[in-house]
């Protein structure tokens, strides 16, 4: 993609209110074409409402949004020609069979009868639903329904695909299947906006992530940016001798830059690695990892020099979990962040 092509999504100050509830309260988003963008947030954060605004299902009360340069409020029909939506609750017709669902939607997109049938059959095959093709969707398992749902969104080869919590309620295997599908779709140039409450899902699929809470974007950036914003990770050690824990804690604190946490286990300590000079962590994951590795090595050396025996040692990467808690538990005052 050239840099001159418009972003797949560009939203500025999007607002949607329901009565006194500001469900979406000034959301800004920029999604580059051909990428997976994760919208991460707890239930009720405004993820689905944001998707509905972008997918022309709701009209914004304020702000504006463009999909490939087309305004969602002024040119909804053009936008609809570019997008597909897989809603949070299965957006297939449960009374119809898998084949009927796909043929119906295919016909509505303008495919001829013959083309609609063959495309439906191809997709059902590719999605592992060939055997269930003739059964009503109400008898499908959660994973099958979700796959049918996503297949229905691919009948038109959309340029932008909205996936609203695509794996909520799925077992791990079905979840992996959905992830594989998303990767295959993106590999062909479709842009995906994914909402999820699962951090590992955003971590697995998305190249950029916006953390959304109470209708606002509280953080935005690459996975590396977000992780770096909460520190470099943590060092966990288990000592041979519980009596020397305080001594070890006193040694680790200055090396790693934070106060060690004494765990319930009397021989265990965990210490967050703080960047030496604040802000020097860098935004690239590589740099942050290197810094974290250096610090941990120094920490181990300090313990060894003092003759404190370490039974186990581990370096934990900061998880999106930590990012999420840090960002959303805190009153949402830090609107600006990485990026």
């Amino acid at each position, binding site marked *: 993609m050239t840099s001159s092509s418009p972003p797949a999504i560009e939203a500025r100050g999007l607002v949607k209110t329901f009565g006194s509830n500001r469900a979406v309260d000034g959301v800004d988003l920029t999604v580059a074409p051909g990428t997976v963008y994760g919208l991460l947030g707890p239930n009720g954060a405004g993820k689905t409402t944001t998707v509905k605004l972008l997918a022309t299902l709701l009209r914004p009360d304020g702000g504006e949004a463009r999909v490939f340069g087309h305004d969602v409020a002024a040119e909804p029909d053009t936008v609809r020609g570019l997008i597909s939506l897989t809603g949070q609750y299965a957006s297939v017709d449960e009374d119809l069979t898998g084949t009927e669902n796909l043929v119906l939607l295919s016909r509505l997109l*303008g495919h001829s009868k013959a083309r609609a049938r063959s495309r439906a059959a191809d997709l059902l095959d590719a999605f592992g639903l060939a055997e269930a093709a003739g059964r009503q969707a109400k008898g499908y398992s959660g994973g099958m329904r979700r796959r049918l749902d996503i297949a229905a969104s691919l009948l038109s080869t959309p340029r932008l695909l909205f996936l609203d919590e695509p794996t909520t309620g799925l077992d791990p295997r079905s979840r992996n299947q959905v992830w594989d599908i998303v990767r295959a779709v993106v590999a062909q140039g*479709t842009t995906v906006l994914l909402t999820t409450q699962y951090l590992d899902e955003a971590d697995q699929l998305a190249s950029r992530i916006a953390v959304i809470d109470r209708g606002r974007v509280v953080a935005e950036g690459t996975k590396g940016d977000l992780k770096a914003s909460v520190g470099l990770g943590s060092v966990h050690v288990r000592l041979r001798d519980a009596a020397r824990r305080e001594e070890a804690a006193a040694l680790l604190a200055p090396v790693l830059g934070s106060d060690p946490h004494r765990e319930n286990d009397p021989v265990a300590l965990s210490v967050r690695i703080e960047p030496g000079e604040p802000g020097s962590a860098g935004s690239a994951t590589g740099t942050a990892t290197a810094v974290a590795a250096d610090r941990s090595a120094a920490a181990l050396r300090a313990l060894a020099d003092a003759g404190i025996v370490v039974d186990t040692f581990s370096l934990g990467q900061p998880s999106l979990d930590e990012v999420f808690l840090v960002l959303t538990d805190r009153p949402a005052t830090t609107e600006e962040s990485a990026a």
Partner: protein
Amino acid sequence: MSTVDAASPAAPAGPPAGDAPATADIARILLADPPPARPTAWSASVTFGWRAVLKIKHVPEQLFDVTLFPIMMTLMFTYLFGGALAGSTTAYLQFFLPGILVSSIAMITMYTGVSINTDIEKGVFDRFRTLPIWRPAPMVGYLLGDLLRYLIAAVVIVTMGLVLGFRPAGGLAGVAAGVAVLLVFCFAFSWVWTMFGLLLRSEKSVMGVSMMVLMPLTFLSSTYVDPATMPGWLEAFVEVNPITLVVDCVRSLCAGTPDAGELVAVAAVSAGFVAVFGPVTMRLYNRK
């Protein structure tokens, strides 16, 4: 969308086993098709009509209302009123059958609102509303599917009538013309129910409102008795009741004495229903 070259690898998964999705195939399918031209308004509506027919196929129980209800209505009123009003049930049938044909099917139109009300809450409607199609197509599709139901009901009622002794002077052609006029009217009249289906919150309230509207409309009409026998104020209402206009028109057609004035009146009333309730329905649909 072919900025991606064909050599770009899909996920390096092995051959898919069992129900696993085949990512390489997905990639191939996505690249295979140039986007088709958009469907016409008519084609999209007919596709939604096909959806309604499929639903009848999968849930045939929903045809009870268009088969048993009309049979019950026809039998009940023929034997209840026949002797008293016309001396014999056969004599009454000649007057009554076209009327009950219209009234029964007008009653059945209310299920349009009920089914829209339950359907619209489902996720699949969000999908329909993000499709680049003629906006009223889903609503028109419902009504097209319902026309099939009305046609079934009409065939049931006319067959019942013939068995009981109904002998229309207009013959098959007259009856068919009558049914055709009735279907046109019902299509137009149903926009009232699409509106209520979208406006009201629950299925029950849709039913309630529908009955409130339909009971007076169908009973205070020329269906059961000649309006000339009614008190003046009631006759005045009955004469302008759209159901009366349709009953009179269908009656003339069945009797083989079509009346241009009646046909024009039904056409005008039908156009009026679409012109008023169509736009209101679409406003509600777009806002939902």
